[in-house]
């Protein structure tokens, strides 16, 4: 194995919001090794107080996203070999969110916006009712399903240049969720949600940069969802109602 005894040169952001620097570490390379493993190695063997966040370690919880060589990624599912540049890595916290410490960001505003964009279901039935029969082939349901598998990792949020410049913008993940709900026939908040997402902070702020879609680890396409919302906005502005 050529990997054996090889070392990775890793620059890791240390510090808090607005006050930090990169520290450099040499980490032994391994055949099966993710970015999260690299960070873990540093915490366990070189820098005991290094802070980072993870939970599931298999790409389900969206806790572990960081900026790796300048690109936001889920670190538990990013193999080192895929992102290494000249044997080097630069690992930094996600952009567009306040840093708590080292690689840990405060995700509150991401979730505030999720809820702010009415990213929750408003029921039309109760637990005493039968479950609605909905064909998966129905076009609206297909729209809803296409956007549903988000793990709220904020990779897209970090990738979006518009948020960097316009902090009031809800961002791709929240709007992507709103799109699913707007297509959910069981939901009753279509009108009020539409008002929210076509207002301040809403979908019209998006410039279709498509960074969200480019970097979403789950291959979702928030750009498409947001475009859908823009059409909904247009339709309701021009014709009213649905």
């Amino acid at each position, binding site marked *: 194995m050529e990997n054996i005894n090889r070392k990775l040169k890793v620059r890791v952001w240390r510090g808090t919001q607005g006050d930090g620097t990169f520290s450099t570490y040499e980490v032994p390379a391994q*055949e*099966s*090794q*993710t970015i999260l*493993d690299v960070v873990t*190695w540093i*915490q*366990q*063997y070189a820098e*005991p*107080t*290094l*802070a*980072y*966040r*993870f*939970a*599931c*370690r*298999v*790409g*389900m*919880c*969206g*806790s572990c996203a960081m900026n790796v060589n300048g690109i936001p990624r889920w670190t*538990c*599912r*990013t*193999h080192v*070999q895929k992102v290494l540049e000249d044997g080097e890595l630069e690992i930094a916290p996600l952009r567009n969110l306040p840093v*708590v*410490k*080292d690689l*840990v960001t405060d*995700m509150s505003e991401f*979730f505030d916006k*999720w*809820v702010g964009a009415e*990213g*929750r*279901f408003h*029921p039309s*039935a*109760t*637990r005493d*009712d039968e*479950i*609605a*029969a*909905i*064909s*998966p*082939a129905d076009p609206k349901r297909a729209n*809803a399903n296409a956007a*549903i*598998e988000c*793990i*709220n990792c904020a990779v897209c949020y970090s990738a979006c240049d518009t948020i960097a410049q316009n902090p009031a913008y809800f961002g791709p993940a929240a709007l992507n969720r709103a799109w699913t709900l707007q297509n*959910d026939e*069981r939901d009753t908040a279509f009108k009020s949600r539409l008002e929210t997402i076509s207002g301040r902070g809403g979908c019209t702020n998006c410039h279709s940069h498509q960074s969200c879609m480019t970097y979403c680890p789950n291959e979702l396409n928030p750009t498409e969802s947001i475009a859908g919302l823009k059409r909904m906005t247009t339709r309701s502005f021009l014709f009213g109602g649905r």
Partner: protein
Amino acid sequence: MFERHDTDVLIIGAGGAGLFSALHAKKAAPDLKVTIAVKGLLGKCGCTRMVQGGYNVALGKGDSVERHFMDTIIGGKWLPHQAMAWRLCEQAVVRVRELENEIGCFFDRMPDGSLHQKAFAGQTYDRTVHKGDLTGIEIINRLMEQVLSRDVEKLEEHRALAFIKSKSGDELAGVLFVDMRRGVFRFVRAKSVLMATGGGPTMYRYHTPSGDKSMDGLAMASRLGLPLRDMEMVQFHPTGLLGGEGTRMTGTVLEEGLRGAGGHLLDGNGRRFMFDYDEKGERATRDIVSRAIYDEMRKGHTTPNGGVYIAMSHLGPEDVRKRFKGMVKRCADCGFDLAGGRVEVVPTAHYLMGGVICDPDTRTEIPGLHVAGEDAGGAHGSNRLGGNGVANSTVYGGISGDVMAADVTARGDQSLSGLRDPDEDAIKFEIDRALHPFMKKPGDVHALRRQLMDLMWDDVGVMRTSEGLQRGMDRLKDVRAELLETGLADSETRYNMTWHDWLNLRSLVEMSQVIASAGMWRENSRGAHFREDFPDSGDLESSYFTVARFDETGDLAISREPVDFSIVKPGETLLKDEPETLVGQSN
């Protein structure tokens, strides 16, 4: 030295149990202050999110609560607490409708629009509702949105350290936390507390649960003197990914369906071995396959990393890629070719059937303390059916919310506040206990964690003997002693993960001791517990479960208690004149 905080209902943990509890408490009594404290971010930690396969629920059309119940009892080898198992099956029906109709989950449908249901091993009906193989994400995301948009207080990255009793000592006063971000201690007084920290047997070399889980809740409860049952019952999933020591991927689940679909298990030499153990081959149940693999490993028929292979390519790589898209991609991201090559796998500790003893209303022995989800013992007996885990946490989470809200409302009438003053000395003691490693010489916590994981795997693992268990207990004592002499390199308390690794390890060591002792006491083989020296299941009528309890001086006592066959007795069934299995006949 520490901050104080008050609330009405305090929930520890934000998995299926914790989040459901908050929603139900808030719905039952909107004026109550409900607080969720959680070790990670709300909705983004714990195992409910990691549920792949799905949710068991009997939705009619030939299936019935009775059938679901019988599957649960037989699957649990007659050890389940029958009233709890019954309520689980009965309420799952309501809970799934609640999830779909009120919370907003959308489960997979048939072309005609009705729910798609499939069968996990051990079921006699295609009963498991799911959302692809990412069911947990759908459930937790939807719950999270509902909780976040309600008036529920959240204390994120707050680690529970200890339950604190009232001055009088007969009730619970509140819970001591450390705010992990700021490194500050915080005592939260509450009228009612739910413990829903989700068990999680992460003390094994290979394990599936999320990194935040380390049996803290059980350790806290046991130190309060609460009895724990079935603690020897650790479920192993047969196919965990084996990627080597230095990667956190190792241990994570490769889904059950791979074997069901016809995947082969091969030893290090490429020989298919499962038929040596069971006529169903790879399609045998979890426990049998786990033991078979373990046996091959012991015999040294292993792969480079010490496991066996799973091979799918004979089914056609393209087909495999299509059918198991998520799994193939997950493996590919980490550098393994599941569709076309072989992937190394190993049995991996998955779920703890054991837990705190409680009643079907989630009440524990201590007034004011409730328990739900994986922390609660009883519903699964010696073996949990795939799909009953998330059903259990959501059903009982909801029940706990209802019950706590009702209790607090009732109590509110009696006394002015219902809040109880804590035993201040206990708080101080617990803070010192948490700060213990800062007082010691720096050492290697991670090496100790590895020692623990190795010894549990070797001696208290898939197959057990009295010799091994004894050795395990001896080694545990050493690890514990060494841990207490192992300190941290730095005095930093803010987001110091190594400190939390230390605290995790202490919880795990304490609970490992309970697991090993309970394992020693069960001198037969049932469900997840297999004793090579007692391979028989023992007489069903006189089935007993183990109860582990620490006394005042900190000594562990284990006892056996007879199972109460309150609904059905061994040899009987609730299914009159019905076919044994209906799998494959509904959809």
